[in-house]
């Protein structure tokens, strides 16, 4: 893949999730997939095939990893998953642009996401 390419629907994307956002049943809150103020509507993720658990999680005392297919955000008009490697993270990608008024993208990702366990 080249920087700027649209990630195919079947690819898994990984998102680092704060432990406080994980429910007792193991599912995850949509808040984990809501872009931060500085992100301007783009959610940072890693492409599964390119990253490793250790590289993506940073600190397993604070975070866990959830994954979802690129097809989930692609179901929303004008939302794309774009390969966007950055210095120090060649797996980095962006999901967006998510309209800040649209809570449904984050919730849809959360409802379809699954937790990654690697030990």
């Amino acid at each position, binding site marked *: 893949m080249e920087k700027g390419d649209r990630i195919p629907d079947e690819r898994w994307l990984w998102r*680092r999730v*704060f432990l*406080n*956002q994980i*429910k007792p049943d193991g599912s995850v*809150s*949509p*808040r*984990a997939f*809501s*872009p*931060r*103020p*500085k992100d301007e509507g783009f959610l*940072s993720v890693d492409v599964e095939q390119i990253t490793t658990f250790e590289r993506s999680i*940073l*600190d397993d005392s*604070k*975070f866990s990893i959830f994954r979802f297919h690129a097809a989930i955000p692609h179901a929303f008009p004008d939302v794309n998953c774009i390969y966007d490697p950055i210095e120090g993270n060649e797996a980095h990608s962006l999901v967006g642009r998510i309209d800040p*008024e*649209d*809570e*449904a993208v984050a*919730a*849809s990702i959360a*409802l*379809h996401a699954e937790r990654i366990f690697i030990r």
Partner: protein
Amino acid sequence: MPDTKYQQKRPLPVFAYNTSFSQERPGMGHRTRTSVTTGSIGEFELSENAEAMLRRLDKFRRIPDDWDSCGAMASSEDAIQAGKRFVRALDRLRQHIDFTAPGPNGEVSVELKFGTKYMEFVFYPAGKWKYTAFEDKVLARQGNYDNTDLPSLLRWLNH
């Protein structure tokens, strides 16, 4: 098994609007059809579920800025207060609360589910409140949330 202690000590809620809905919640001991009629809000005993959610919301105050190491904002006090008021309102209606979570923009969320239906209410700083509703993981509706929407939204969730 019905929670008889809860049913004996806790009076039926009385709200300032007319609605009617039924609920059956494992762990809550609610197996009655509740009619909510016009009136004033009285004293009531919080369920264990609501108390746990209120404690969780209080703990969000300890989460600092940049809690995700990527610039997330700490939960705002007005969002926490709005979330707590909402939890109390839901509990008066004997609605089981599934989860509460902090968000990266200072917001807090309150989540509900029943069968294959799911709702998230999001309380942002400065009084911006939103909700989404899903059935079978498919978006059913979303929009700005106003307290007057609660009866119809809960009717949708619980039927």
